[in-house]
């Protein structure tokens, strides 16, 4: 039956650096210097160590539930490098690396996940909204933030982060659809780590990619190799530039892999084939970047040792800062519900203080 085509479009994937550390030099983002390349690598090593430390702390009972970002270092470091100071970050719950690179003190990130509300008071300069745990819902905040930036004529862009699982929530849809209609300065940056707890991406949706979902909203979509820090940088940069130029929102998918358990409360061995993990370990984002730098004489064992040493020291410092925090005042439970303390909260606060003998 003859029909007319009313829509034709394609979704693309961007790859620059392969697992062996080989890159076609012509594809390397022109905006990045050799020093930037090294910084990207260092940043990835830093956030991996920061993450490993948290897992250690958790095993020792010094940390709460922690969701490891292992495997997603390129996705977060690439984006972080593409961001400018005036941009806003609207994180989900696995963006520890991004937050750190954005200038959030590590001990605050740790504090949040240790179970201390003060870890939600991120420094103003970081321009981060607080981490959002209800999956997917924060993408709408990124639309509102991006719209605020557009309405005020500011240069900044709001980047909303979420995972592959989040793409199934209604709010994902509403956010992307609103973004198509209101053209906020927003980038949706989805780290598809191929698992949502125990549910593999193939059971999350029958679509072959997250990026192609952009066709539903009249906005561009693009997939990057999420274990390739150059591809992540380039895809983020392209989307940020577009938003900054007032051309609307973009959906970026960084196709990566969650190498750890979902959180410290999870055991992925229950549901994940060991071969799959091995397959992705060979595609580790840090490994390939090290190979790349070493092949160019920009990195070697000595520098590795020195940087590892420095990173250890910095992370240790954050742990010390964490553990040196004064215990939180129980009265603070009441103090941030409203600008003023209403009578019922005042009564309840007084009762608690009395119980605590204060």
């Amino acid at each position: 039956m003859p029909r007319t085509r009313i829509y034709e479009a394609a979704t693309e994937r961007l790859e620059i650096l392969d697992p062996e550390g080989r890159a076609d030099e012509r594809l390397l983002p022109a905006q990045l210097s050799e020093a930037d390349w090294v910084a990207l690598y260092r940043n990835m090593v830093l956030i991996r160590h920061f993450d490993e430390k948290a897992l250690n702390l958790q095993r020792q009972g010094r940390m709460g539930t922690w969701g490891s970002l292992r495997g997603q270092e390129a996705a977060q470091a690439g984006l972080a490098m593409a961001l400018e100071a005036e941009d806003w970050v609207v994180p989900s719950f696995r963006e520890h690396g991004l937050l750190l690179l954005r200038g959030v003190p590590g001990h605050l990130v740790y504090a949040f996940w240790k179970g201390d509300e003060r870890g939600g008071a991120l420094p103003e300069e970081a321009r981060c909204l607080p981490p959002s745990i209800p999956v997917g819902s924060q993408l709408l905040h990124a639309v509102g933030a991006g719209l605020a930036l557009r309405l005020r004529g500011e240069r900044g862009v709001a980047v909303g982060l979420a995972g592959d699982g989040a793409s199934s929530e209604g709010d994902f849809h509403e956010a992307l659809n609103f973004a198509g209609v209101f053209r906020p300065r927003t980038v949706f940056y989805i780290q598809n780590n191929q698992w949502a707890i125990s549910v593999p991406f193939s059971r999350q949706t029958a679509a072959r990619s997250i990026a192609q979902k952009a066709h539903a909203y009249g906005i561009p979509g693009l997939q990057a190799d999420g274990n390739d820090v150059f591809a992540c940088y380039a895809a983020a940069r392209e989307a940020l530039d577009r938003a900054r130029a007032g051309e609307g929102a973009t959906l970026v998918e960084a196709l990566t892999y969650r190498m750890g358990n979902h959180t410290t409360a999870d055991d992925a061995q229950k549901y994940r084939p060991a071969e799959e993990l091995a397959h992705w370990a060979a595609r580790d984002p840090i490994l390939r970047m090290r190979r790349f730098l070493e092949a160019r004489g920009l990195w070697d064992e000595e520098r590795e040792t020195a940087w590892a040493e420095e990173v250890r020291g910095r992370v240790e410092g954050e742990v010390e800062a964490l553990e040196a925090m004064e215990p939180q005042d129980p009265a603070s439970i009441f103090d941030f519900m409203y600008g003023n303390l209403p009578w019922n909260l005042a009564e309840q606060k007084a009762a608690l203080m009395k119980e605590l003998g204060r």
Partner: protein
Amino acid sequence: MTAARTAASPLHPVNEPAERLTLAQALNQALRQEMERDERVLLLGEDVGKDGGVFRVSEGLLDAFGPDRVMDTPLAESGIVGMSVGLAALGFRPVAEIQFMGFLYPALNQLFAHVARYRNRSRGRFHLPLVVRMPYGGGIHPPEHHSESYEALLVHTPGLKVVVPSTPRDAKGLLTAAIQDEDPVVFLEPKRIYRAFREEVPSAPFTEPLGKARVHREGKDVTLVAWGSMVRTALEAHEALERQGVSAEVVDLRTLNPLDLDTLLASAEKTGRVVVVHEAPRTAGFGAELAALLQERALLHLLAPVKRVTGFDTVFPYPLLEHHYLPSPERVAAEALETLSY
């Protein structure tokens, strides 16, 4: 029968310029004046722009302020509230309209998981000066889902303020205060009385304080507590009771959270008998909280149990039966008389 106890807002003396407005018009005026005063105030929602809102509350505002400040949104309530969060976090003061309270449900995740918690989650780094306003309650004979009143759910959620005007004057003053408030306010508009009557409303901007009840009628035998359109019902019950020689005090809570406990307790202690009137289903409605508070704090003053005259624990009936559901003045008066013979 005595005049209302809460004086006119001190900024606006009695002989100021005023017009007779309906509740819908008073809300429209509040929106317009706040948008004039503060360019951070934005309106968004389904059909709020060209259509002026299905109840015409935002009539004329798109023309006055343009499409960047009055935004017709796609049909998605979670989107409306969720986008408002981002706007407010970055310094705007969004006033989001939900078309009917029955369609707020899809936005409850944004409202409960984010709006109510943002100040706390960020330990005060961010707070959300936003208003989510919507028509609520019954009495207009609409299809299913257009008569809901579940204010109790909102009051049970810490971090929100909940405001319900019952007169045009209060509607303007309270909405103005809600927009100026630094915390999120859910503003429930009794659609049944959007156009039911007119009242003198000061023409200049003014605020009515959130958290203060209004005593519409002073009385000594029994206290009728209500909000929204049930205030009219209570006032009519007051008339009926007066004809039978019973002096009923009528307290209009106006704000459900924070609650004006002082006014409530003072009235209960004076009369010793309280009838709470609301449209929502009885079980676990806000009337339960009022009864709980009263027995907690005024037990020895109570000459009879606090009565609840409420909707039934059912779906709000479709138009042909809805009059059986809504508390009527007769039902309120009858229950009030019962407390008198306890």
